[in-house]
């Protein structure tokens, strides 16, 4: 007798779930760039297309950074361990958008006028912290491969805690840039603080349980 399998089982396969989520991350990750490129060539990005590209790419950088940092808290809260498989992809998309963000600023806005850019990086605190965040992301992107994870061992985790520092600097960069409407920078700051708090809470719990075990 043939067993009628329920339709839901296809999606119930955890590997497929991760695959689908990865496809979704790719679509969301590349979507803004495709949308901006199309808009730029159609002239539909509004009166100041360069500013729009820089702002939107900056926001997506933060979204992906926060999403990357949300993976572990979500894992702890839901117990869904496989979600960890999305983290590298999310992190690399954060780095990708950070690069597009910076290159739009340096190239589209300043035509790679190095003296002006250097002036900004050294003298404008919001650009200094934004640039520092970008620099911090470079070693994280480079060491995201399996080979580096193996080679660095325990040090890898310590190194990759820099993602919190980069995100903090990114939020500060955003907060210092706006003139009066600090709503979204504060939303980002609260989200980051929340994620960090969950992390600390679980860390404390872990320590307590290890002590008890002894």
């Amino acid at each position, binding site marked *: 007798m043939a067993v009628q399998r329920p339709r839901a089982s296809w999606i119930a396969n955890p590997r497929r779930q991760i695959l689908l989520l990865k496809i979704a991350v790719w679509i969301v990750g590349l979507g803004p760039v495709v949308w901006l490129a199309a808009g730029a060539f159609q002239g539909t990005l509004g009166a*100041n297309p360069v500013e729009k590209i820089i702002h939107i790419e900056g926001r997506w950088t933060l979204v992906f950074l926060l999403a990357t940092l949300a993976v572990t808290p979500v894992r702890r809260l839901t117990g869904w361990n496989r979600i960890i498989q999305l983290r590298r992809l999310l992190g690399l998309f954060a780095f990708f958008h950070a690069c597009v963000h910076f290159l739009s600023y340096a190239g589209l806005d300043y035509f790679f006028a190095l003296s*002006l850019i250097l*002036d900004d990086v050294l003298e*404008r605190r919001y650009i200094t912290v934004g640039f520092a965040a970008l620099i911090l992301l470079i070693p994280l992107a480079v060491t995201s491969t399996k080979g580096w994870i193996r080679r660095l061992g325990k040090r890898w985790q310590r190194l990759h805690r820099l993602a919190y520092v980069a995100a903090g600097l990114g939020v500060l960069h955003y907060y*210092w840039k706006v003139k*009066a*409407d600090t709503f979204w920078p504060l939303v980002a700051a609260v989200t980051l603080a929340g994620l960090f708090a969950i992390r600390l809470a679980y860390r404390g719990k872990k320590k307590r349980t290890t002590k008890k075990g002894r």
Partner: protein
Amino acid sequence: MIIRIAKKSDIPSSEITPEDVYINRRKFLGASAGIGAAAFLGCGAAAADSEAAETDSQDLEPTSWDDITTYNNFYEFGTDKADPARNAHTLVTRPWTIKVDGLCAKPGDYQLEDFVKPSVMEDRVYRFRCVEAWSMVVPWRGFPLADAIARAEPDPSARYVAFETLWDPAQMPERRWKPRIGWPYREGLRLDEATHPLALMVTGLYGKTLPNQNGAPLRLIVPWKYGFKSIKSIVRMTFTEDEPPTTWATQTPGEYGFYSNVNPNVDHPRWSQATERVVDSSRLFKRRIETLFLNGYADEVGHLYEGMDLRKYF
């Protein structure tokens, strides 16, 4: 590489400015400034001066109607540049009353029509430089602020003139969350700045009625100062002896001053003012241009600030 795509909605320049006026726009700008100068200072030489100034500066290619009317800072209608164009339709511009008060002989509540009518309208193409380091070139229609001030007959003790924007939460509904800048929006000028012939009371754009998002029905344009000095939707004009409080200088005193003259040598604490991006939706690859001292109007208005430390009085 320059990508320039003309949209169907673009207004052909032939429609907005007579072609001969447009081609001779430098002369035209110089001349209209000169008319003002001649009328209020009684000195015809100003025309020659301002024309010389224009020849040295960059070409004044007017920004498109679409760009001027969809990229606005008018926080009462939202803080995104595209918000005012979407939201300002709720602003009721007729009837409109302007309260004139303070140290003057002719205080009172004036209907917009009565406030504007005695003056002759002029078209002026001005550079517009925002404190956020972007700029436009805008063909305004209006009349010298000096006209309105002369009609109010300020007392000899009046040294400043203050302005207020309409603040009506019913017409300016709360959107999400309003930044805590004090309402109503306030601005002000020293009286000698205000009576300078370049300072304009504006009621029109590209020869048409001023759109709400651009500050209808009546706004100020002070072309040598950062855009936020050019207060929109004015409901009050007050003559004072002391420097009046102004919105941004009150909100963030370390970043915005009372004078706020365009000055490439005095940076905003958070960003450089040395260059600016000329707003243009049709061109993605466009170099920034160097910002000019007093926005290119130094020959006309530079004397107002002689002997002043512009780093201190920024």
